[in-house]
């Protein structure tokens, strides 16, 4: 189905209403399976049970970047194709992405306390995720600074695209900054060295969280469309009562 069919918000609402119950069911199922598998996964020989924080932490960290990618595509949709739903998608993705990023930071911090002995370490990864979080908050502030949604959409779209160029640069520079100043004392999780007993629950959790994002995003988009309709109706009402 081409995206242009979804340009009509009513059609999108119908489709969202049809998809959402199924999506919720599948998300719940996958997350339940993932959580169960994470719970029965063996303890790490060094980290003990705290390694299970990873099953929450890594999907959140992955989504913190994935959501910015979704917003970048939506920003292109706003600026290039003028797709009517693109700015709704971009606007509603920002708070969800910020929440995932915050959870990644929070779980990382809680994991860091027993492992590194500190809640915060100026580790390259933590730092770049923190900067990503700041950029999400800045973007949300930008959305809230303008009343007219379509103007806010175009301003936010430019910032999102600039951010998507800049985020890899920031990530690279922070990596460089940290490795220069600190010897490799920080515990780093090597992705390829992960055992299968950890890898499978992690993959299931990653899929589950991605589904969770899809569910939340579609629901938030539906709410945003309805909110805009309510606003339009209220404006109409107000102008009628004046006239």
């Amino acid at each position, binding site marked *: 189905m081409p995206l242009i069919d979804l340009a009509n918000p009513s059609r999108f609402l119908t489709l969202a209403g049809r998809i959402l119950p199924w999506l919720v069911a599948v998300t719940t199922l996958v997350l339940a399976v993932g959580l169960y598998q994470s719970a029965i996964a063996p303890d790490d020989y060094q980290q003990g049970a705290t390694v299970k924080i990873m099953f929450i932490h890594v999907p959140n960290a992955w989504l913190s970047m994935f959501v910015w990618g979704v917003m970048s595509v939506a920003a292109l949709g706003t*600026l290039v194709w003028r797709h009517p739903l693109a700015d709704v998608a971009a606007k509603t993705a920002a708070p969800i992405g910020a929440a995932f990023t915050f959870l990644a930071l929070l779980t990382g911090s809680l994991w860091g306390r027993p492992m590194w002995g500190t809640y915060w370490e100026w580790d390259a990864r933590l730092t770049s995720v923190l*900067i990503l979080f*700041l*950029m999400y*908050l*800045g973007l949300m*502030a*930008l959305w809230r*600074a*303008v009343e007219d949604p379509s*103007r806010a959409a*175009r*301003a936010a*779209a*430019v*910032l999102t*695209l*600039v*951010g998507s*160029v*800049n985020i890899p*640069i*920031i990530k*690279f*520079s*922070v990596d*460089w*900054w940290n490795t*220069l100043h600190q010897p490799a004392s920080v515990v780093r999780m090597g992705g390829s060295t992960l055992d299968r007993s950890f890898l499978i629950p992690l993959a299931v959790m990653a899929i589950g969280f991605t589904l969770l994002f899809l569910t939340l995003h579609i629901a938030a988009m539906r709410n945003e469309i309805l909110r805009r309709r309510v606003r339009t109706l209220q404006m109409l009402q107000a102008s009628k009562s004046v006239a």
Partner: protein
Amino acid sequence: MTALAAVIRRDVRVALRVGGGALIGVLFFLTVVVLMPFAVGPDLALLKKLGPAILWLGALLASLLTLDRLFTADHDDGSLDLIVMGRTPLELVCAAKALAHWLAVGLPLVAATPVLGLLLNLDAVATGAVALTLLAGTPALTFTGMVGAALAVVLRRGGLLLSVLVLPLSIPVLIFGVAASNAAISGPSPFGTPFSILCALSLASLVIGPFAAAASLRHGLD
């Protein structure tokens, strides 16, 4: 080409005259650097160690706080609308305006660095290194900041929002600027690598900044 040269000449002239406020940036830079010893103590050895970082932070803040001058005056008197509708490509005009802004605001910061280096007990090599990295890095600050300035003028409320949007984008410049200065002063690591990356960041922002700023002006002002 003559149109762009005219834009540059006009902007520099406006910035240097009464009400232009180009030199307020240098004054702010001086004030921030003078404040630092009050915060960390008059320990000359410590100040020498922190010197490059202090100078870079001061220059970053000074160039950030002068950014809203880039478009607001033109927006207030309506000439920005003429520029947007004009025949000269908006991207090129944005680049020219940012270049003029850098000449009026960024270059004085670089020129002031040797004097401020004395205050922070930096020797000649260290001062030269910081000035050189600032010369290479401040264009990146101006050209990435221009995107924020364009967004702020479109939204009609710059100020804090502009800072919040622009500061995260300037982190790489800060990292490599301070790293290159420190490498030249004390570090065992070579000066060339971070300095080349700093130049690369400036060149990249020279390309990306005008396009993003022009896009937000064009989409925002109509």
